């Protein structure tokens, strides 16, 4: 548990990550992800509770546990006036690496993140995506047992995002444990075997994607897009809520999301209702249940509010 002043940022949060597992921590902004990570990394001291890595308890003063962790903070935490190579040398030495080993590992990590060619340029001259990759490289350098990635793809162009996700997949394949926080459900689904869903500083649900989805009853998500006034759509949403087989319905702008466990029955009924309300449907989509719908189900809110 951790308080800031009187506000409790994180409480009653407990999870474990297996060796070689990529674990996703999902939650909207402000849900307590970064606080949790800071406590795991030993930057913040928990007011209560404990963190153990490979049997070593984490403490702000203990270097032993910290050496096992690689932290990639959410914001790019690099010195603009140093090159990627200089960063790696600096942090490598802080991790106790030296000489040939450090040089070899530096080259290796630069290869992994695809910065070998620009490694002598100052970070300030990098593009946003390159900075992100350099940011990750620093966390990887000392071969940590646990790599913590805090929203590593925020504000990254699609190409760099792909490159980042691919390299994380590779790392996971090599037996590195990864703690990955994001509010992009797609990324979590792609990378993580298990995810924990967190909101308001507490864990709402945890498990594999399959477990979580079945936990909300295998609902499918029907999305209808309208070109109509919000009031009219709201009326339609209210009517949908009453239809048989609909477990929840909500509007986001011109889009209505309907959760159902019987899409084959519900779909015609919903379209019929729209017709009845005089609303023109411009598109319809049916999606199998995913983490997004789990979160919607658990909180009644979408992740990216």
């Amino acid at each position, binding site marked *: 548990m951790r308080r800031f002043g009187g506000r409790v940022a994180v409480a009653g949060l407990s999870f474990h990550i297996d060796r070689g597992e990529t674990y996703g921590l999902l939650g909207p902004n402000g849900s307590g992800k970064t606080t949790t990570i800071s406590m795991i990394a030993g930057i913040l001291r928990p007011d209560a509770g404990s963190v153990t890595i490979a049997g070593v308890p984490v403490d702000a003063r203990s270097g032993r546990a910290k050496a096992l962790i690689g932290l990639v903070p959410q914001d790019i935490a*690099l010195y603009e*006036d*140093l090159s990627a190579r200089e960063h790696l040398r*600096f942090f490598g030495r*802080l991790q106790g690496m030296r000489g040939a080993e450090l040089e070899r590992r530096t080259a290796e990590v630069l290869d992994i993140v695809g910065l070998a060619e620009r490694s002598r340029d100052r970070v300030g001259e990098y593009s946003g995506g390159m900075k992100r990759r350099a940011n990750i490289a620093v966390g990887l350098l000392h071969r940590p047992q646990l790599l913590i990635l805090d929203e590593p793809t925020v504000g990254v162009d699609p190409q760099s995002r792909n490159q980042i996700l691919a390299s994380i997949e590779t790392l996971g394949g090599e037996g590195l444990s990864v703690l990955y926080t994001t509010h992009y459900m797609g990324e979590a689904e792609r990378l993580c075997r298990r995810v924990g869903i967190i909101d308001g500083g507490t864990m709402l649900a945890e498990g594999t994607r399959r477990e979580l989805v079945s936990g909300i009853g295998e609902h499918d998500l029907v999305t209808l897009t309208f070109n109509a006034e919000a009031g009219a759509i709201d009326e339609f949403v209210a009517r949908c809520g009453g239809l048989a087989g609909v477990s929840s319905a909500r509007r986001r702008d011109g889009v209505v999301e309907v959760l159902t466990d019987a899409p084959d029955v519900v779909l015609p009924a919903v379209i019929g209702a729209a017709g009845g309300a005089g609303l023109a449907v411009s598109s319809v989509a049916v999606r199998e249940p995913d983490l997004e719908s789990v979160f919607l189900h658990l909180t009644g809110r979408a992740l990216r509010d």
Partner: protein
Amino acid sequence: MAQLSRTLVICALDLRRRVRNRSAVITTVVGPLAMAIVFGLLVSGTSELTVRIGVVDLDRSAASMSLVSSLLADDGSEAADGDPGGAAAQQVLQFVELDPGGAALDGVRNAVADGTVDAALVLEAGFGAAATAGGSGSLVVVQDPEQVVSGQIAASVAQSVAAGYRQVGLSVATVMALAGTGSGAFDEALIDAAGAQSPALSVQEVPVGGRDLSAAAFYGAGMSILFLFFTVGFAARSVLAEREAGTLDRVLATPTTAGAVIAGKTLSVGVLGVAGFVVVWLVTSVLFDAPWGDPIAVSVLIVSTVFAIAGVATFVASLARTERQADAATAAVTFLLALLGGNFVGPNQPPLLRRLSVLTPNGWSLRAFADLNADAATLSSIATAVSVLLVMGAVFGSIGVRRVRSVMVR
């Protein structure tokens, strides 16, 4: 042991970054050096000034004329026997006779105002009579307020002339009083003898000895101290800056302790501060041929000054919550301490300021540097200054470091 090597790694990184961003070079070397050189040039002490004092005889008596001719014969070098500065002093003081003309006193005033002479002595009518036979007569000193030195010299010459006549008058009067002779009776021989009497107080010059304080050395030290605040205050400020940038958390997520981070940053500014100080020391010494004093004492003093100011600057910066606040606080304290410590004032400090300067590290350090430079230091005076500096640094530094640590360990 591992933390020690991390301290060095952090120190090296900070040094590299600061040297690369050349602003550090400006604050540690260019700034103090430029100022020391400028002040060294301006206050070099040897201005090529000749004081010309006009002498005007409006009396035209025997006494006044003899006084004028003795003044004109005075080339300013008479000073004292075996005076080492005598040769150089010859050009400095010069008496010239001014033609009173019709305008009399006004003409003299104009001559002083337009710079024909720097000051003037006017022997008014009745001077001779008063000097020798009683009655009142005047010697007027005409000064230009902008020519302070010349005015002082002219006034002192007048004081000396008047004292000469007074001495004769008094001698005669005393003899007469003791002998019981009535006043009024004039004895020329007595007057001559009184005038020839050698004065009861004579002076003999003793050499100044040692070495004069050099402006270049004084301002070199003074300006280095002033700029040190900005150089060494950077340690605590960079902790705040790195916290804002997120790199601090990243460093703390490695097995590096907060203490090692602070030690590394402090060490790097200490190295920079000492290096800058030493560069200023060497450059001014060579450029102005002005050694600062015993090299060992100077070195010890430099290190303890850097230590003291690092402590104070860390304390000041630790009071701030953001880097901007820290900048403002550092600037304010720097200039307050510099004002009180005498960095902005020349070596000739008034008594009040000298008392206040004891409250500042600047004052202690600057005084010790001046003592060393002017060959006026003793082992105990330097040891006292060094201990005061070390205590100031330790006290403020430990409070400051504790505050900075509390920012880091959350």
